[in-house]
């Protein structure tokens, strides 16, 4: 089972993601914005990072850029949780170094399928 960092400023979305992943046996850490996620990421190691794009303090794109600048996170999969209306955000995320994305709205089954897809 994997160690996953879930980053979202929405308590309900983050709760849903964390609950679903924990239910599938993963170990989940949570952070409510990019800045806090970096702090958590520095103090630990993760197999996968799931991050919302629009967040206060530090958004998901800036967070990916910072994570990719850290040696420990050069090759770690990072998925953006994004909405369909923002293809340019997807591309911005990719340019920052995101592995891929999961389009909102998603349900727990889709989330687990995507996580499985990344982790193998």
């Amino acid at each position, binding site marked *: 089972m994997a160690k996953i960092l879930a980053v979202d400023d929405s308590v309900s979305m983050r709760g849903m993601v964390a609950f679903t992943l924990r239910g599938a046996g993963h170990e989940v850490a949570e952070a409510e914005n990019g800045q806090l996620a970096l702090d958590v990421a520095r103090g630990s190691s993760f197999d996968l990072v799931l991050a919302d794009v629009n967040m206060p303090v530090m958004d998901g794109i800036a967070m990916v850029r910072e994570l990719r600048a850290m040696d420990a996170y*050069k090759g770690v999969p990072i998925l953006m949780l994004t909405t369909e*209306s923002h293809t340019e955000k997807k591309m911005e995320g*990719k340019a920052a170094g995101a592995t*891929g994305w999961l389009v909102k709205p998603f349900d727990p089954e889709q989330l687990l399928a995507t996580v499985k897809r990344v982790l193998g």
Partner: protein
Amino acid sequence: MSAVDLTQFHKTFFEESREGLDAMEAALLALDSGSTDHELVHTIFRAAHSIKGGAATFGFADVAAFTHVAESLLEEVRSERRAVDSGLIEVLLRSVDCMRAMLERSSQGRPVADAESEALRVELVQLVSGEIAAPAVAAASLVAPVSGWNIAFTALPHLLQTGNDPLRLFRELQQLGRLEVVRAFVTDSAPAQLAELDPSQCHLGWELRLHGAVARGDVDAVFDWLDGDCELTITPMVDAAAADAVPQTSDVPVPPAASASRPIRETATASSEGSSIRVGIDKVDALINMMGELVITQSMLSDIGEKFELSQLGRLRDGLVQLERATRELQESVMRIRMLPIASVFNRFPRLVHDLERKLDKRVRLELHGEHTELDKTVLEKIGDPLVHLVRNAIDHGLESPAQRKAAGKPETGTLKLNAYHEGGNIVVQISDDGAGLNHAAIVAKAQQRGLVAAGQELSDAEVAELIFQPGFSTAAQATDLSGRGVGMDVVRRNVRDLGGSVGVRSASGKGSTFTITLPLTLAIIDGLVTAVGSERYIVPLTSIVESLRLRADAVRKIAGGGEVFHFRDEYLPIMRLHRAFACSDAVTDIERGIVVVIEEDGRRVGLLVDDLLGQQQAVVKSLEAHYRRVQGISGATILSDGSVALIVDVGGVVRLGQHRKAA
């Protein structure tokens, strides 16, 4: 896989959506008052975006659809394709109201969209210049009549740095059909010398064949995330025989689509949303810390208790002192959990002021101070209405029209100030305006007309101000729909009193008025003085005690009607014999042998005669009404350390009772 029940997140979603809408509203109002801070636009957009995402995820399709359109409009503002003007802010404020109402209906399990929301949605759609992308509805994967695909896939050097892995892609392709690697090769980007090879760079390419009736969309989905990270060409395999051989309705594994018809779990308890509180982690940590100390103390005490000898008396005492400290701190920590910043109430006012300005054609600058001051949740929930009333009054009656202000040599824009702060064991909330102040002549005339004061009676400023709190009093020449006759200042005062607080006003003619509300920190616990009356125990709230004294019999005067008064600091105070008021037998009736406790409420004082003072104690207030019935002069009950029940004196009620007797 067992399905995950998402309903458990609904309450959180509604809560954070409400907060998001409040933030949107505040930011819109800030934009309206001329701020050009681009962060405000981001805040508004982010809130709408989160609500849309959450609504779609948790199955509130109508909310998601509405918010989607609003978000599209906001996206135009964010990307500076649309300028912010007052018309746009109006429509967005109405959208906030609409979303709030829709969420409210969602949380109650009622139908969400109505004619109003639909009309507003259409209005928004017409405003959005560009086409609105349809909300996410994944296209059903079409099964293509092909026997397979030729895939030429060449990684760009940085592919591995995006966290993608060619091996993962191959695994996924294998799940779609039989994968054949025709050729793997090293690309030209590879360095000539092996020593120069950077393991984080990828210099490989593959020619692949994927056999089977796989939909093109499914193949694309595998490479979906690699746009810009590879060179990719996908062509159908030209194999007519195979195409004929494979039935088109083969059971190709189709990944679960984002179905728009995802079942929404119905919950019978949708409307019975319990009240909850969001607590800062620091408060919880403090609690856990205190709990830890309590556990240590408890184990120490039980250790002493198991083999107790008199020589350990010192240790026992130390332990008890520790226990007392830990208990008190734990109690304070628990109480802090109920404390929430008054900002949640204050934040309503920018919108209210904005609306009132338009309605009454006045210009108001709102200043909020002390928004972080924390109040008990119950107090907070109940103080909103009185505050709204005072703010309405201040704008409607207090502040003059711009023309009147100009004539009086004041700035055309009036100032309304809300301030909250701690003072002693209380929270003080002040509402002050720089308007005309109370109109004494009009108040007195009205009071005379109402028979509240006799004609020609001389009244001090304080007495005149007090008149506006009398039931049924209203000075407005015309009752407006804002501060009409339905709710008067008397109701404000009653509401505040119900919270154990008080309200008063200071006013200067031509300069403005200040209403001051004083509230207790919490309703659940009071610091009280335990007094004895006969065999009964009464608790007097410490905050309202002025002084306790022993009187000599000759200091007491009898007045007409059988009342007693005594001289105290330049005034005569009525004496309230508690044993008489509460019909206690075997109490001290000789004033010289008892003790008089002087209590004060709203500047009015009364002396309570009790037998004796037993000490100070924190009392956890239990409602008497809930267990018995309302008793005049008693605000609740508590349990003393010896297990007996003591009644808590309702100071306001007792003072009113005493004043009434004095007047009689």
